[in-house]
Structure formats: C-alpha cells, structure tokens
C-alpha cells in the first residue's frame, strides 16, 4: 500500500464515518431519552434521499401521502383524548398541527416538484416531509408503550422498521435512485481529489454535532432531555413531560436522519432498504459508545468508517463481516468493565 492509496482510503473513511457518526448520535439520543433502540433510524435516510430524487424527477414522492395519513391518525388520537377530557379548545391546535401542517408540506412538495432546478427548495421540502415522521412515529408507536421494557420497545421498533421499508418499496420501487450533485466543484490537494459533496458531508456533520452540544448544554429543552435521560421519574417529578421529551428526541433523530440522507444521496445510489444497513453501521458506533456517550459514539462511528474503507481494499468480500464482528470484542470489553444495572433498579 502506498501513501496515495492510504490517503484516498482515509478520505473515503472520513466521509462515510461522518455519516455514521450522525446516525450514532441520533441512536444514542433516542435511546437515552426513551430507551428505544431505534431500528427504523435508517429509514429516514432512505426516505429523505429518495424523496429528494423523486422531487428532482418532477414528481411528488409517496412519502407526502404517508405524512398526511400519519398526521390524520395523530389528530384522531389526540383529538379523541382531548374530547374525552373535555379540553375542546385544544382541538383547533391539534388540527392545525397534524392536518394543517402536512397539507402545507404537501402543497410545498407539489410546488417544488414543478421546479426541478431549484435544489435548495427541494432539499428544504424534503426536510419538511421527513422530519415530522419522528414525532408521528413516537406518538403512534412508542408513546402508548413508554413504560414497557426495553425488549418490548425493541420489538415495536423492528415492526416499525419493516412497515416503513415496505412502504418505501411501494413509494419508490425496487431500483435505486441518485440525486444530482449540488456542484461539480472539486479541490485538488496533492493526489487527493476532494469533491464539494464530501466536504459538505464532513462540514454538516461537524455543525450538527456542535449544534447538538449547544442544545444540550445551553438550552432549557436540551437540559430537559438530559434530565429525562439520566432519570425519567425524577425528571417527571420536577415537571418535565416524558411524552414531550420523547417526541422532541424523535424529532431530532428524524431531522438528523433526513440531513444525512440529503447529504449522501448525490454520492451513492440509495435503495428503499439502504438506510437500514447505514444505520446498522451507526449502531456499531453507538455500541462502542455504550449507547450513552456522544463523543465515544462519534469516535466509534469514525472507526467503523476506517475499518470499512481499509477492509474493502484488502478483503472486499469480507468487509461486512469485519465491520460487524467488531461488535463482539467491544461488547465483551464493555460487559467486563461496566457494572450492570438492572432495568428495575433505575
């Protein structure tokens, strides 16, 4: 292996690792606040990347209809609850948020599909389509089960994953799509040919990680999330709504997934089921961080990126096995060094 090849592989590793890091952060965020191992995290990537490519093809993606249907379901549930408890004045707000907003997004999607050249508008619309799936999924699938065991939540997460993958196949078909690159600009540094696209991936990851840090350290909402993560019962005692914290964490996770999807859609071909594999690699990163530590999770994800890139050069047929085998020594090391806390003792 020459220095040139090592540099190329490193460049590839950092770009992929940055995406995995984003997903690892989202997984850790959701897990610490709600104890859900969020298997469908990857579907946000597929949905975002494929919605963007569909918009660029001048069509309104099927995810828009799913958004409207999901919003209507949430409105029905929340509306019925408000009706039963006699808070009729809330009905208007519920309708506005769950029916009005998706309708607005649908109109925006239709508008963006007519303008194939307006890339920024399309990306914005894609974010607006995919991000609301976070709170919708939380409200429909996880909020009613918030007090259940980690295992039950995991099983529900797997079910949601299969549901979303199946819908993805219906919306986007079996073949992959790729969106057009934002710019053809590329930078030549020595032997390296760095495209604007990969710079954007790395830059956006850093910005997002920094923004998350700001959120958790400097804002009341972030502190509420942290409090819930550390002790749910205690957080509720001081007036933090567990449902709100859960919904917020799912919204952030969906936003991160959508951004990751938009970032990689011009670099690679995305299929309706690609997201799962990407988030699985993010998951390996998150496991290295013990599912609780953000910096360790990001570092772990970067390690996965390096492992993947270099093993694809040396033993490409075993690449996947190498990456996923990494989990075994890590789990071994973690279970030997950390004190196990039973769930009920929290």
């Amino acid at each position, binding site marked *: 292996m020459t220095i040139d090849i090592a540099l190329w592989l490193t460049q590839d590793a950092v770009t992929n690792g940055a995406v995995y890091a984003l997903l690892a952060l989202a997984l850790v965020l959701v897990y610490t606040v709600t104890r859900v191992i969020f298997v469908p995290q990857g579907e946000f990537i597929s949905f975002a990347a494929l919605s963007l490519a569909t918009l660029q093809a001048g069509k309104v993606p099927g995810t828009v209809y799913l958004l409207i249907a999901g919003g209507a379901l949430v409105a029905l549930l929340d509306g019925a609850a408000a009706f039963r408890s006699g808070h009729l004045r809330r009905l208007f707000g519920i309708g506005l948020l769950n029916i009005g907003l998706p309708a607005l997004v649908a109109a925006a999607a239709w508008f963006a599909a007519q303008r194939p050249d307006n890339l920024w508008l399309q990306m914005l619309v894609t974010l607006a389509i995919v991000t609301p799936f976070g709170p919708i999924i939380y409200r429909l699938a996880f909020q009613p089960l918030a007090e259940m065991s980690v295992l039950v939540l995991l099983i529900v997460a797997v079910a949601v994953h299969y549901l979303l993958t199946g819908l993805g196949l219906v919306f986007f*078909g079996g073949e*992959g799509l790729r969106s057009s690159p934002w710019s053809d600009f590329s930078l030549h540094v020595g032997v390296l040919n760095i495209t604007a696209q990969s710079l954007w991936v790395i830059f956006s990851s850093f910005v997002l990680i920094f923004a998350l840090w700001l959120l958790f350290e400097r804002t009341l909402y972030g502190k509420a999330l942290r409090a819930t993560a550390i002790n749910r019962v205690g957080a509720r005692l001081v007036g933090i709504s567990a449902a709100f914290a859960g919904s917020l964490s799912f919204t952030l996770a969906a936003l991160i997934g959508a951004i990751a999807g938009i970032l990689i859609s011009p670099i690679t071909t995305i299929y309706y089921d690609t997201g799962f594999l990407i988030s699985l690699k993010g998951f390996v990163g998150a496991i290295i961080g013990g599912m609780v530590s953000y910096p360790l999770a990001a570092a772990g994800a970067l390690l996965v990126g390096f492992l993947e890139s270099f093993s*694809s050069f040396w033993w490409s047929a075993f690449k996947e096995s190498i990456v996923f085998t990494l989990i075994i020594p890590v789990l071994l090391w973690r279970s030997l060094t950390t004190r196990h806390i039973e769930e009920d003792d929290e």
Partner: protein
Amino acid sequence: MSRRSFLLASALLASLACAASAQEVTVGVTLGATGPGASLGIHYKNAFQLFPKTLGGHPVKYIILEDATDPANAAKNARKLIAEDKVDVIMGSVSVPSTTQVAQIATEAKTPMIALSPVALPPDKLEWTFVVPQPVPLMMSAVVEHMKTKGVKTVGYVGFSDSWGDLVLKALEQHANPAGIKVVTNERYARADTSVTGQVIKVLAANPDAVVVGGSGTGGALPHLGLVERGYKKQIYHNHGTVNREFIKVGSKAVEGAIAPTGPLIVPEELPADNPIKKVAGEFIQRYEQTFGAGSRNAFAGYSYDGFLLLNAAVPGAMAKAKPGTPEFRSALRDAIESAKNVVGAHGIYNMTAKDHTGLDNRARVLVQVKDGAWRLMK
C-alpha cells in the same frame, strides 16, 4: 330452505365446480416482488398480468404467491402449491437460491418446474426442471468474444458479494482463461454499499485492459461511476442483469459506452427482419410498455413470458395423454416440455433435449451498448 337442503345444494354446486375445473390447468407461481430481489421480482410478476386466460387452448388458473426473495419462503410456497393446490406445474423464482430450493421440491414431488432464474444444481438433478434464462456462461462468452476482438489481455472483476457475483465471475473465467485473458482482480461489494472506493482503487492499481462488473440493475452503476470518477478510461463491461433504463438514469453520462450482453427482447426494433425472435419479442415489449410505461422493458418480464410460451407449446401434447390434476398429467407435461422444439420466445429459440433443459443457443444473446442514454444493439 332447510339446513339440510342448503348443505346438499352447496355440495352439488361444489362438485359441479370441480367438474368444470377438471379440464383446467393449474400453474403455481412463487415470486419475490419484495425483499432484496424486489427490483427484478416486480417485473417478473408484472408479466403475468399480460398472459391470456388459456394455456395451449385450455383454461388455466395461475396461483401466484409472494416469497419476499427468501429461499425458505419460496420452499414453503412450493410445498403449499404442490400439497394443497395440487398444481400441475410450478414456476419461480427471482433469486438463484430461491429457485434452487423450489427445483429440489419439484423434483421430490415429481412436478414439472419452469425455473425463471438460473439454478445452482448439476444437470442430473434437473430431471423435472426447465430453465428459461440464458445460462450465465452463454452470456459472458459474448463479452469475452468482444474482448478478444479488442485485444484485451487482462481484465479486472468487481462484483456483488453474493451468488450472482460468484456466477458471473465463474462464467467469465470459464471463457477468459482458454482465450488467454487473465482475470487479475476479484473485488466484491454489496448492493446497498455507499462506497466502493477501496475496491475501485484495487482494480486501478492492477491497471487491467478492461473491467467486468458483476452487479445487477442500478447496483451495477456504483463501481462504474467510481472507476470513471478516478480516471479509468478503458472499456467497462457489465452482465445481462444490469440492462435496464434505471441503470442509465443513475449512471447518466458516466456509463455512456458501457457494453453488456442481453436477450434480443431488449432491442427488437433493431433486430434484422428475418430474425424470428423479432416478432415475438416486439409484440411482447409493445404490450408490456403499453401497460407499464414506455421504457419499462426488461429481461425479467421476458423470462416469465418465455416460461408461459414453453408451457403453451407443451400443454396440448400432455392434454392428449391425461387429465390435469393427476400425476399422469404432470409426467406427460414434463415429457412434452422436454420434447419442445423450435419454441420461439422473446429471449431466444428453445430446443429442449433430455440432456439440455435450457435449450438456448447463441441466438439468445446479443451485445448492447449505452449510446445517447439508451441501450443500443451492437452491430
């Protein structure tokens, strides 16, 4: 109506229904229009919508089950079709492992089978199985012949890390080695990989005269784009699994000039007028694109159609010997398919023999090249 007379009436009706269906041929189909093979399976399944209500002039019933491209599911479907639905013939499936499972069960149950994808079984295990798609070596031989005329001496290989990647590599080596062409790399990737940088660099380091990609559909575009992006200027070949319009859509300008083998049904308009396949393929493609959109032509729907054509030709002979729903009919149908001669399909002309249960020759393959954003026949 009293309860007893109601029961009597329903029993009578049921026996009437049975009598009516005694002459009906039942075809059991297992396909995967979801799961990892969905991009192929959707096309396989679509074709069944276009089939007529008769098979060889007799009424026919298709029972189509979904196996989600999972060999275990395909096996379960096959057992159900044979045991519960008492099908006369079974068709399927989308992936090599699934089809192989179904073929083994069909042999066990002495039920003829039309395999819609290649089967990983030795010829002596194929007594009841007839394979519609061109054998991979037949397709790759066209690629190697083209390499020979261009003076290619070394070839790099990048393929899927699954049975398809293995099949294409094996077929490539089978023809390349005797021709004095050396396969210098064997790099693998997965369809859902987001990057093939490592594999591409390895191929570039070997600097072969040409590269063969063993992917399928849009999955074939990733290494092609990677190679072009890093300045590889020589010829890149694909295989017949890659030939569809989505591949060109994803690859856009970078895949211009890519060469692949395929069945003649992809380019019926460009075939010479004296080619008998031109008419069959042309009519099928026209109907398919009318129903599923212009440019939706693909090899996989053609495999389903050729399976239908083979049965269509064989059923009258079997009908003369036995009644559908009996073991005698299944055996007669098997013999009739085995003696099929000059059945013109959309992919080629089938001449089955006891030794050859594929029955295709060089007329079942053409080379196509991406020109101005479309697959064009190479003259």
